[in-house]
């Protein structure tokens, strides 16, 4: 009954604060979209050089919006000097594609286009498919940054915004004196914590669904596994963020001090989220990674979205998130003792 009254109040307050709502729901979408465009350059602008290649194949490539430049010499130097993105040559029946790869997304796009053109030509002509050898001037072939990054980013944004908004929500309750006032009513500490989890949790659920759907439907992020597993993982992560945010707000005395937790608590977690290979880190650093909630969430999200893992494969990560949430929730109930012993 009391919990219900509190939840109702929290929801009402949130709905009246349109800007915070907008931040919660749309800011992650804007940032994700920007990242998407930064990391996935436009493949249509690709320009490749052609030397001694079957005319039918070249025609197919031109149909695919690739700018063709005919060149004499066929080596890496030509690519760099002529400012091309790639170069296709025929060396005694074996096709060779040299890719500049200064922008992995462009290089990959060319590779895909050339491969598809080859397949089409093959289907028309018949016979053995000519082999395609790929050379990279910079980097190597397995770099499609956003695909690797996006599961981590989705998790991170859910964590970040829920952490900030729930933390500041409870902080406002403290600084305005209403928390103390609440403590002068017969409300129990766990009721308050439960209401905060449920009230803000509702908005976290909406946010998670929006962010995940947007990433998958609009940004077309690779999703091999089930979208439900992605949402489940993110919901657990949101619960961790929610309980951690409200917990840390008891150590802050102003909104500004709450923001100060971002570089200390939130940013370091990115480093352990798998954007940088954790396996290569020093052992003590890996140990730190194990106490970061995002480490587990990112592992699960990458597993589901990129590798197509099922629920059983990510159950250990999910369990870790549950433990984090549980610990933070219990600590929350204790932290309120500061205001009333009982």
């Amino acid at each position, binding site marked *: *009954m*009391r919990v*219900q*009254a509190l939840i*109702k*109040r929290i929801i*009402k*307050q949130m709905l*009246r*604060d349109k800007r915070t709502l907008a931040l919660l729901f749309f800011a992650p979408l804007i940032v994700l979209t920007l990242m998407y465009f930064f990391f996935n350059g436009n493949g249509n602008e690709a320009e490749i050089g052609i030397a001694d290649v079957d005319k039918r194949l070249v025609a197919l490539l031109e149909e695919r919006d690739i700018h063709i430049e005919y060149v004499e010499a066929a080596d890496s130097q030509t690519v760099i000097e002529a400012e091309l993105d790639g170069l296709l040559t025929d060396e005694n029946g074996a096709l060779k594609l040299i890719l500049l790869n200064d922008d992995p997304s462009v290089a990959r796009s060319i590779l895909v286009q050339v491969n598809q053109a080859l397949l089409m030509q093959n289907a028309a002509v018949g016979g053995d498919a000519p082999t395609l050898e790929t050379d990279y001037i910079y980097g190597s072939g397995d770099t499609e940054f956003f695909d690797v990054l996006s599961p981590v980013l989705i998790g991170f944004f859910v964590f970040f915004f829920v952490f900030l908004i729930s933390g500041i929500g409870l902080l406002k309750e403290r600084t*305005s*004196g*209403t928390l*103390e*006032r*609440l*403590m*002068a*009513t*017969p*409300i*129990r500490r766990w009721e308050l914590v439960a209401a905060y989890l449920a009230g803000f949790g509702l908005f976290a659920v909406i946010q998670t669904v929006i962010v995940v759907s947007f990433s998958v439907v609009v940004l077309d992020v690779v999703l091999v596994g089930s979208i439900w597993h992605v949402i489940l993982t993110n919901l657990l992560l949101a619960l961790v963020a929610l309980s951690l945010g409200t917990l840390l707000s008891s150590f802050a005395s102003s909104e500004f001090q709450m923001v100060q937790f971002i570089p200390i608590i939130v940013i370091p977690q990115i480093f352990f989220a798998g954007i940088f290979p954790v396996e290569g880190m020093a052992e003590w650093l890996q140990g730190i990674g194990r106490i970061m909630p995002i480490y587990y969430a990112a592992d699960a999200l990458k597993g589901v979205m990129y590798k197509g893992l099922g629920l059983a494969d990510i159950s250990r990560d999910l369990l870790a998130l549950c433990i984090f949430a549980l610990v933070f929730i219990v600590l929350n109930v204790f932290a309120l003792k500061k*205001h*009333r*012993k*009982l």
Partner: protein
Amino acid sequence: MEVHKPFIFRNGVLLVSIEIDVKGVSKSYGKTKVLRDIHLQIQRGQIYGLIGPSGSGKTTLVKLIVGIDSADEGDVEVFGIKMPNLDLLQDIGYMAQSDALYLELTGYENLAFFASLYPMKKTEMKKRIAYAAELVKLTGELKKKVSAYSGGMKRRLSLAIALVHDPKILILDEPTVGIDPELRLSIWNELMHLKNEHQKTILITTHVMDEAEKCDIVAMVRNGALIKNGSPDDLKAAYGANQLEEVFLQAGREQS
């Protein structure tokens, strides 16, 4: 200063008429001693005034009684039960010194929210809200958001919230700050009414002397110590003074 504990028997049932019993309470924040060995007893149906300059420890004492802060030494008992106690909070209406209100919500929503934290039926709740709002003359303003309220209106809403669940004990921390004289008078009339008609026990802090005159018992607090208490008339007689203010000044000199 030790007060004899009066007991009242009714139908063979012992009723302790002392509702609030503060027993030797001390409190420090860091190295600053805020309260020093405070003893006081408040009886049912009394208006008990805590008077003293700001920073004297009135608010801390009030918070200890409500149970939202804990004493280093000593105990506070309400109805003979040690605070903090969740069930007892049901019977206490607390008005904090700072207006603890939800600015995004309307006056009505604030009242309804706090009312719903107590066991109350919907119809009773509506009646209580209407009554409390009328008492502080806010009925016409309930639909407005609190962020649009003036300082005095917020004070009045806080008072209405303290009253909304019909508590037996009212603990009001500086309830009339920022309220115009006319409304202050009407609030005091209402407190008198609550005391006389409903036998409410009211603990009030103030630093306005003419409000202290209206209390049944006045306790003077200075530097965290209770230096004198008694009815305004007794105190004035004891010091041969015409006004409480003189009593306060003289008692203060004695202490230091």
